[in-house]
């Protein structure tokens, strides 16, 4: 069915915009659903995914890295949206888990006079790192451990190994940038969502507790 839809889009190029938009919205809903405790999670995930993925896709098309056709644009956007979704999900989940696990540390930092961004900085750093580790490992090991899909697809489609490698490298570097930006954007959105007036951190409860609730005495 997806194949038939894409064939239709190839015949009617303006439909490509709608198709890519649907991809981004579904990715945002999927990723945001993983951190639904956070107010506005789906909207934040949509922005964190669509902004870097579509922005970088646009730049790649504008600079002539790929043809400005649905045949090139849709797979490129798809790869980047998929990568951004993975990074946003990993980063978001890790950060929300850390807000629970390290609530006492966050409280200690706030009690010592840190503002919220400073108090949450170690958690954000770990979460963003977690989010981009897969693409970093993929980039480092490409050709040694795995032959990535783009490379294999191009070879099977008849491209020369040199052309396939050049395009794959472009995609990998773009993915690296997009995933880093997606991780940063979702982390900043979560930080903003849990920041309450008076330099406080309030995490909507998953089990009746919140980050600043000591749950004692």
């Amino acid at each position, binding site marked *: 069915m997806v194949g038939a839809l894409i064939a239709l889009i190839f015949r009617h190029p303006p439909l490509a915009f709608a198709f890519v938009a649907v991809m981004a919205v579904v990715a945002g809903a999927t990723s945001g659903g993983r951190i639904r405790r956070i107010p506005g999670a789906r909207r934040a995930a949509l922005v964190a995914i669509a902004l870097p993925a579509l922005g970088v896709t646009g730049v790649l098309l504008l600079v002539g890295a790929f043809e400005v056709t649905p045949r090139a644009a849709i797979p490129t956007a798809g790869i980047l949206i998929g990568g951004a979704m993975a990074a946003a999900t990993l980063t978001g989940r890790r950060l929300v888990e850390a807000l629970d696990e390290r609530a006492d540390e966050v*409280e200690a930092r*706030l*009690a*010592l006079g840190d503002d919220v961004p*400073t108090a949450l900085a170690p958690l954000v750093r770990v979460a963003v790192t977690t989010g981009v580790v897969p693409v970093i490992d993929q980039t480092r090991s490409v050709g040694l451990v795995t032959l990535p899909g783009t490379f294999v697809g191009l070879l099977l489609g008849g491209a020369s190994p040199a052309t396939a490698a050049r395009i794959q490298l472009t995609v990998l570097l773009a993915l690296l940038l997009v995933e880093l930006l997606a991780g940063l954007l979702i982390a900043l959105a979560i930080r903003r969502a849990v920041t309450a007036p*008076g330099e*406080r951190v309030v995490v909507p409860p998953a089990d009746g507790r919140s980050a*600043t609730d000591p749950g*004692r*005495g």
Partner: protein
Amino acid sequence: MSVGDDAGIVAHGIGLTRAGRRVLDDAAVTVAPGRVTALVAPSGSGKSTLLRCLNRLLEPDEGTILLDGVDVRTVDPRTLRRRVALVAQAPVMLPGAVHDNLVHGLADPDPAVVARALADADLDPSFATRPAGELSGGERARVALARALTRDPRILLLDEPTAALDATTADHVADALRRIADRGIGVLVATHDDRLVARVADRTVGLGG
């Protein structure tokens, strides 16, 4: 430092509802400079919550909290939390050495203040170089006390400071609190420890103040 009738912390009518549960209802407490006030109430009655309201780690739904006559809601929260310092029941040590913990967040730490804080917490100066992650429970409690003191607080809030300590270490902490109060700092201790109350408290209050 003015020490008038309104000096220290005066909180009254404090109410807080969380997740549909009334955690604090019309709570009140007064902490005078230079005095040790023991806040004694049953477990789960909201002592820890009240301490966190006093430096705005939690925001009460009702009531007024004044620090030296000024509504704490008008004070920058970061400044407030340095003037009203909290030592949690299970203090978290931040990464690095003890010294890193003591000067955390201080723009221009004064070595004399750090040294005095260590002494006030009954810690040897050599402690400063110890990895904070390798301290025992009693050492962590005292480092947390010293860390709070490096903020140069007007008021010190302690949540069950002797809960996990042996009697000797608890006595060291009690003596440290006495010295700190004698320097003019107001001390509020939420505790179940009758021995601590008897040893150091100038005044014992419940959640009604």
